């Protein structure tokens, strides 16, 4: 298949149903995604539940976080999502030179996120802050380390996608793999959006 030529089934992992609707990625993936999103939702709810017992202590601890670093990280993940979404589009159009580059740009943003988060951890530890100092920090480190693990997994998936899309994809399962990886990455992005609001912006 030459570059720019349309992939089979319009490049969709699973062909659209009678109504034209299409499940992005493997349908089974959505069980994992909803499981992850519900698990994080329970952690978000626990954070606000415990915050209700000590709002002034949580507000005081929140001051130690760098809102600028949180904002930069949010912009990095949003931008990576844009690159990945365009990458999926390029894969469907069988643009074998463009798609891997877009996934690599997504990886660059992910590495930027990991670097900023590491810098923030370093700053906090340098100020003598420990996980056990306050419930806020327990939630901060618990949520962000768990999320960072997902960023690392997502980065590995993006690397596999960048490697696999150097050649034209032919089988629907290959498209499903790319769409599934992209959906996982977007989930990492949306979880951070809520984490940023809860930890850095809630008054």
């Amino acid at each position, binding site marked *: 298949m030459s570059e720019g030529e349309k992939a089979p089934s319009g490049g969709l992992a699973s062909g*659209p*149903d009678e*109504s*034209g*609707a*299409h*499940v*992005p990625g493997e349908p089974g993936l*959505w069980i994992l995604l*909803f499981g992850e*999103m*519900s698990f994080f*939702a329970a952690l*978000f*709810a626990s954070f*606000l*539940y415990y*915050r*209700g017992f000590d709002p002034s202590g949580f*507000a005081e601890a*929140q*001051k130690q976080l760098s*809102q600028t670093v*949180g*904002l930069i990280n*949010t*912009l990095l993940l*949003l*931008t990576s*999502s*844009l690159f*990945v*979404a*365009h990458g999926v*589009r390029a894969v469907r159009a069988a643009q074998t030179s463009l798609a891997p580059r877009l996934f690599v740009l997504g990886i660059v943003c992910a590495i930027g996120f990991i670097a900023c988060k590491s810098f923030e951890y370093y700053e906090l530890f340098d100020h003598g802050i420990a996980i056990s100092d306050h419930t806020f920090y327990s939630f901060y480190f618990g949520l962000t380390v768990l999320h960072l693990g997902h960023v690392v997994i997502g980065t590995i998936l993006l690397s596999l996608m960048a490697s696999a899309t150097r050649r034209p994809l032919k089988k629907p399962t290959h498209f499903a793999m790319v*769409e599934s990886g*992209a*959906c996982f990455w*977007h*989930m990492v*992005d*949306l979880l951070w*959006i*809520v984490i*940023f*609001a*809860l930890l*850095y*912006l*809630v*008054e």
Partner: protein
Amino acid sequence: MLRLLRDPLFLAWSLLVAVTLVSSRIGGPNPGIDVGSAAAVTTIVLSIAFAKVAVVIFTFMEVRGAPVVLRVLCSVWLFGVLGALLALYYGILP
């Protein structure tokens, strides 16, 4: 340039960046803020966050073109979690 402005993915990203900057401006530690204003800021910040999540799910994850079951499940998660978080913040839930 005109093509870029018509690209739904780029438009979604631009919207997400713009509202991120707005919410970052109004949220965060604000010494001396009264309880009522803090509650209003929190409500706005959380609502903006879940509006952003909706854009990511429906545009970037392409749930907009997914079967109705998936669209409904995603909407239930969005409104359910936002409602629960606001209820916890306001002390409506125990």
